[in-house]
């Protein structure tokens, strides 16, 4: 994935739509995102809601334009208020300034003070009247039309987006919505239409959430069995996978709890079928014993942890990168395994697929650390790439006279049979064992098997995908997972301001690549570790392995608010 982006992000527009329960703010955002894709642009949409399950206020926040978008901006150009009940709660999430514009219908009442602090402009629009003029008309669709026009989207793209999004609801819904959309469009003008249509026709665009992408990565990696227990914000991975696994001849089983789900995928994988589960912090905690069993019995499994605010039940609907510690260190005993983190919505596909391949090939457990801000955001992107190496399980289909399941091989990986293969019978065990798998408490067996399990991971050649590295210069941002988007953009801005900057975004967090990282850091005088948690988990992890220069600093800030490029830029500028 070469870095072919320009440094100029000025062609991107940021808009937010808010409204109380039932006002259709999120639907309008979804349609807008589809329209962005129809226009051949790129885009990102995140959403936010109050604590209510239904009927609470909600907000859709989008950023889009002719270049790939991997994070929200520091500020918003446009805020569309469908109504203002409780909208004040979004004031932290939707920063406005004097250059921002609020669009609203005067009938929606007064804009909350909290949103007006930095003096944005307000423009009143007769949406209510326009909606009422259409039978079954809805204000959100009128507002969407105006918004679309304001950002320079062609009406055709908006119409196509609307039809795709609302298709399932039938013409009773679609037709009046289209009417409203057009009326709203006619109310619009184009203050933010700096973006231009792609030259040479519309390129292929995907619209998907990070959770969808993780599901795709699982399928591409060969996963054909999933067992899981619902949990926010991971459930959509399962929802996306359930019907599709079936279409591919696999299956998804809703388990009674996470203890069951992790052990179920261990069973399926023992049966020869690549298997995965998805969860979030509380569920991951419950899976730690199972993960240890997968490591000790050398049964490949993948757990996708879509992180949310922690600790404990924490803040289920908000992002935080707080589970790195548990993912890396949370198994009892010495239990080497894999930890990976996707770097963008689209990268959820690549990273999950790679995780499946690595787990299968290295016969171990892999944890993929996605988070709410990737999983539940939707993006318009180019199609997701795949890892170059096709990694699969080393199978033994013709075992010899005396098959040794845990044979001490040169690279530590022992060819694996599976039920059905005659002569390959063995008992997988979480007790320490001999090469054959027989329980043993002998020091020699323990040392040999511990070393085998360490070596097969440490000595493997992971290639280039361990990190995304962009830019150069003697200042370096080191980051991981979802924070990469904001870090990359902060670096672009720094560069644009004449300050060269390097970004290393780690995709592989365990085992860490000592030599590759040292190479990537060569020549950097200042290192700043950027992440979204309280304690600086990556910072400590890298220090633990003495992989950071002693002067490296950290910028660790917990959720629930996203890390924004400007915030990171500020830290960089403050480095001297």
């Amino acid at each position, binding site marked *: 994935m070469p870095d072919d982006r320009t440094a100029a992000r000025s062609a991107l527009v940021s808009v937010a739509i808010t409204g109380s329960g039932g006002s259709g703010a999120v639907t309008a955002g979804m349609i807008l995102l589809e329209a962005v894709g129809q226009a051949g642009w790129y885009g990102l949409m995140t959403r936010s809601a109050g604590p209510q399950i239904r009927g609470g206020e909600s907000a859709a926040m989008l950023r889009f334009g002719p270049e790939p978008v991997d994070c929200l901006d520091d500020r918003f150009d446009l805020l569309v208020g469908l109504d203002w009940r409780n909208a004040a709660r979004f004031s932290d999430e939707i920063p406005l300034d004097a250059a921002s514009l609020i669009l609203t219908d005067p009938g929606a009442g007064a804009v909350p003070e909290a949103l007006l602090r930095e003096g944005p402009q307000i423009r009143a629009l007769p949406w209510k009247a326009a909606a009422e003029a259409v039978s079954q008309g809805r204000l959100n669709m009128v507002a969407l039309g105006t918004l679309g026009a304001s950002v320079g989207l062609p009406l055709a793209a908006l119409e196509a987006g609307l039809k795709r999004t609302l298709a399932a609801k039938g013409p009773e819904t679609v037709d009046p919505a289209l009417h409203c959309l057009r009326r709203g469009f006619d109310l619009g003008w184009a203050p933010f239409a700096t973006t231009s249509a792609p030259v040479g026709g519309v390129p292929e665009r995907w619209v998907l959430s990070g959770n969808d992408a993780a599901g795709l990565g699982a399928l591409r990696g060969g996963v054909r069995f999933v067992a899981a227990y619902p949990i926010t914000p991971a459930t959509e991975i399962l929802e996306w996978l359930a019907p599709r696994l079936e279409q*591919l001849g696999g299956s998804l089983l809703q388990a009674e709890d996470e*203890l069951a789900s992790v052990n179920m995928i261990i*069973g399926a994988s023992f*049966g020869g079928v690549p298997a995965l589960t998805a969860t979030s912090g509380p569920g991951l905690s419950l899976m730690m014993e199972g993960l240890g069993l997968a490591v000790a*019995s050398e049964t490949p499994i993948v757990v996708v942890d879509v992180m949310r605010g922690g600790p404990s039940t924490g803040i289920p609907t908000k992002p935080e990168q707080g589970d790195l510690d548990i993912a890396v260190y949370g198994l009892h005993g010495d239990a080497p395994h894999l930890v990976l983190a996707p770097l963008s919505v689209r990268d959820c596909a690549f990273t999950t697929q790679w995780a499946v391949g690595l787990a299968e090939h290295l016969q171990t457990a892999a944890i993929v650390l996605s988070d709410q801000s990737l999983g539940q955001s939707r993006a318009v992107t180019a199609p997701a790439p795949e890892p170059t190496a096709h990694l699969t399980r080393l199978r033994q289909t013709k075992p010899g006279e005396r098959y040794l399941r845990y044979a001490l091989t040169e690279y530590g990986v022992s060819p694996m049979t599976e039920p059905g293969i005659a002569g390959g*019978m063995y008992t997988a*065990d979480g007790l320490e064992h001999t090469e054959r798998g027989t329980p043993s408490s002998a020091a020699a067996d323990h040392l040999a098997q511990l070393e085998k399990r360490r070596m097969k991971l440490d000595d493997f050649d992971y290639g280039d995908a361990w990190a995304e590295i962009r830019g150069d210069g003697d200042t370096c941002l080191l980051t991981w997972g979802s924070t990469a988007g904001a870090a990359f953009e902060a670096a672009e801005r720094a560069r644009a301001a004449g300050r060269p900057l390097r970004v290393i975004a780690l995709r592989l967090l365990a085992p860490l690549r000592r030599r590759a990282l040292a190479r990537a850091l060569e020549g950097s005088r200042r290192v700043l570790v950027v992440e979204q948690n309280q304690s600086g988990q990556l910072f400590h992890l890298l220090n633990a392995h003495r992989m950071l220069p002693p002067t490296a600093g950290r910028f660790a800030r917990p959720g629930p608010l996203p890390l924004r490029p400007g915030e990171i830029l500020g830290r960089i500028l403050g480095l001297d």
Partner: protein
Amino acid sequence: MATETRTHALKAKEYKSDIAPVWCPGCGHFAVLSALTKALAYLELPKERVALVSGIGCSSRLPAYLDTYGFHGLHGRALAVATGLKAARPELTVVVAGGDGDGFSIGGNHFLHACRRNMDLTYIVMDNEVYGMTKGQASPTTAPEWSRSKLTPHGPGVRRFRPAAIALAAGASFIARGFAGDPSGLTRLIVQAIEHRGFSFLQVLSPCQTFRPEQTEWKQQVHPFDGEPAANDLEAAARIHADDGMALGLIYVEPLPVWQPLAQPSASLAEIEQELSL
């Protein structure tokens, strides 16, 4: 080269591995191992198509003593491992084995849901009314007044867990009780349990010589169940209600819907990817 194990029907002892059990002399679990090999031989199951899944406990050591596939997993999670295995590989014969602590204490939730799900698994619980492996604590099936564990010096004081009653309420479609001291009856029950399509639950009274030496008296206390196995749950409830816990035989069997994954290959990965495209 051992790529085909089955040119002739195998003898029971050919299902045994060469690993010596760690069990105490006289432990009931030996009889279960032996009955299981006899049942497998009787059913002429190819070794490589059988998988034995267990948890942790003396009883759960069983898989390694068989020359089939095996998984010696975590305490209490055997049914979950087996469920995943069976869902992924429905053609295998999957037998789950463990103890009363493993299955009814820490594993209770999986027991409930495995009964409900009614997958085609056979679950053998070697019940010795004690935690053998951890040296003699009360299990859910221990009598409330048994006071020989230092952890519960006045006895656990809690009514016994009734495995058959729970299995029935939860939805198991095959419930039986065997006894380690009745090897041929036990072999027959294991055969029936494996042959049954659905979740078969087989409780085996399997004395712990070391921590419950008084269980040698079970030989005198067991007796066959009266009458025919129940064929519906109302009858089954009545039988179980009348049960003194020492009656042996098939208690209940009923063909009930079996959960199995609905694999309907109908699309390629490329087609699925296409859906994501605008």
